[in-house]
């Protein structure tokens, strides 16, 4: 691991030589304007871009774009449905292997969020022409390792040249139609469980300015490289009514989609939400990603912040890359599911509950 890491970083340091052959020490993340899912086009903007475009329907399409869900799902038979998703973004780590692994874990997550299992994946890649082949190889190796860990196959892909590197996967998975989980099935009195710490967008922004300690950086990488596979495998054994993964729209953006899709309200006990401690200090210093402000302006009219501090709100609006699974669980199963999760997914937390919607705000923080 250490040797590979050194080699990866060295590759990046060798990558840019100026005309005199002097090393410029340009890092991989410096080639990208946005960090990870922070590069995502905002939900409001996306809706506008798609307005007036006719959406065709098919009775076998169980989940389509109109549902604002994580992946589309197409029923093949009463026993089998296909889950299809794609995700890619510019470098979020300077080590090409870690970047590849995070991008892959993030793309695979959309299948897990639907309750499905990934089976096939294809690489989507854009790299600068001058990027050393060893760095490109490391990005791909990170991707392959994650896909194999998921028990799926990489069967090809497509690569182009571009000044800003981009990498991700198109993923195909399967789910039993009866086990399909969308973000719109949450019911009043369901318990909300979330499986990863927040703060990845803020930490990634601070990383670009070299402000993050080695320890925190490694922790953030580890969190983002972790597959949601274990969480999914445990989740499907219990009565879970709704699920989504928290990514570019931040915890509150994805909660709002769940609340609107399920026509419920959601109460979040902010003390129970896990996040990387250092992110709070960066928030106070104004080291916040543009995506956090976009997410805030998109969702805030539906959020009652109570007396929760601005910095904690920032954490909840912070765009995540390869974030955890957010599950609305039947109250009778919640404790058992949580106990089983704790063994294999230590960062899992019970963070709130679902209530009946009576108009007005959708999300209440306390």
């Amino acid at each position, binding site marked *: 691991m250490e040797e590979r890491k050194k080699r990866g970083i060295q590759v990046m340091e060798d990558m840019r030589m100026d005309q005199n052959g002097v090393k410029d020490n340009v890092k991989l993340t410096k080639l990208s304007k946005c960090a990870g899912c922070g590069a995502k086009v905002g939900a409001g903007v996306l809706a506008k871009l798609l307005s007036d475009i006719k959406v065709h329907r098919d009775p076998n399409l169980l989940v389509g774009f109109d549902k604002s869900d994580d992946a589309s799902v197409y029923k093949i038979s009463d026993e089998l449905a296909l889950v299809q998703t794609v995700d890619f973004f510019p470098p979020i780590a300077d080590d090409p292997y870690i970047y590849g692994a995070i991008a892959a874990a993030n793309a695979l997550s959309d299948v897990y969020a639907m309750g499905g299992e990934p089976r096939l994946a294809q690489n989507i890649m854009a790299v600068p022409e001058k990027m050393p082949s060893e760095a490109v190889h490391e990005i791909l190796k990170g991707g392959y390792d994650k896909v194999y860990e998921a028990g799926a196959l990489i069967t090809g892909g497509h690569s182009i040249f571009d000044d800003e590197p981009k990498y991700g996967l198109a993923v195909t998975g399967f789910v039993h139609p009866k086990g399909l989980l969308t973000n719109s099935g949450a019911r009043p009195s369901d318990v909300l469980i979330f499986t990863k710490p927040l703060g990845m967008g803020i930490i990634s922004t601070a990383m670009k*300015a070299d402000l993050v300690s080695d320890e925190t950086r490694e922790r953030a990488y580890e969190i983002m490289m972790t597959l949601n596979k274990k969480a999914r495998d445990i989740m499907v054994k219990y009565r879970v009514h709704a699920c989504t993964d928290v990514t570019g729209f931040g915890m509150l953006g994805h909660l709002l989609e769940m609340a609107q899709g399920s026509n419920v309200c959601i109460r979040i006990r902010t003390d129970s939400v896990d996040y990387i401690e250092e992110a709070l200090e960066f928030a106070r210093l*104004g080291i*916040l990603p543009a995506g956090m402000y976009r997410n805030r302006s998109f969702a805030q009219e539906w959020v009652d912040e109570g007396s929760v501090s601005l910095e904690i709100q920032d954490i909840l609006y912070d765009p995540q890359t390869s974030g955890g699974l957010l599950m609305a669980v039947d109250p009778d199963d919640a404790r058992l599911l949580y106990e089983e999760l704790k063994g294999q997914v230590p960062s899992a937390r019970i963070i709130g509950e679902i209530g009946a919607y009576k108009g007005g705000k959708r999300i209440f923080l306390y």
Partner: protein
Amino acid sequence: MKQIDARGYICPTPVLMVQKEVKDSAPSELEVLVDDRCAVENVTRFGTNQGYAVTTESYNGDEFKLTLKK
């Protein structure tokens, strides 16, 4: 009044330039030029937390002048 021209820089660079100035000279007044909306928000957030009153005016369309006063 001391002025920082952070136009052409994207986040988090503008707020880091302001942080450095505040740390080095603790000015009672500071003017900051930015052309990135995120920088407006981040400089405002930092300035407010440091006890400055922050006002923003836009000019030339996408450019902003922030004034930090103690």
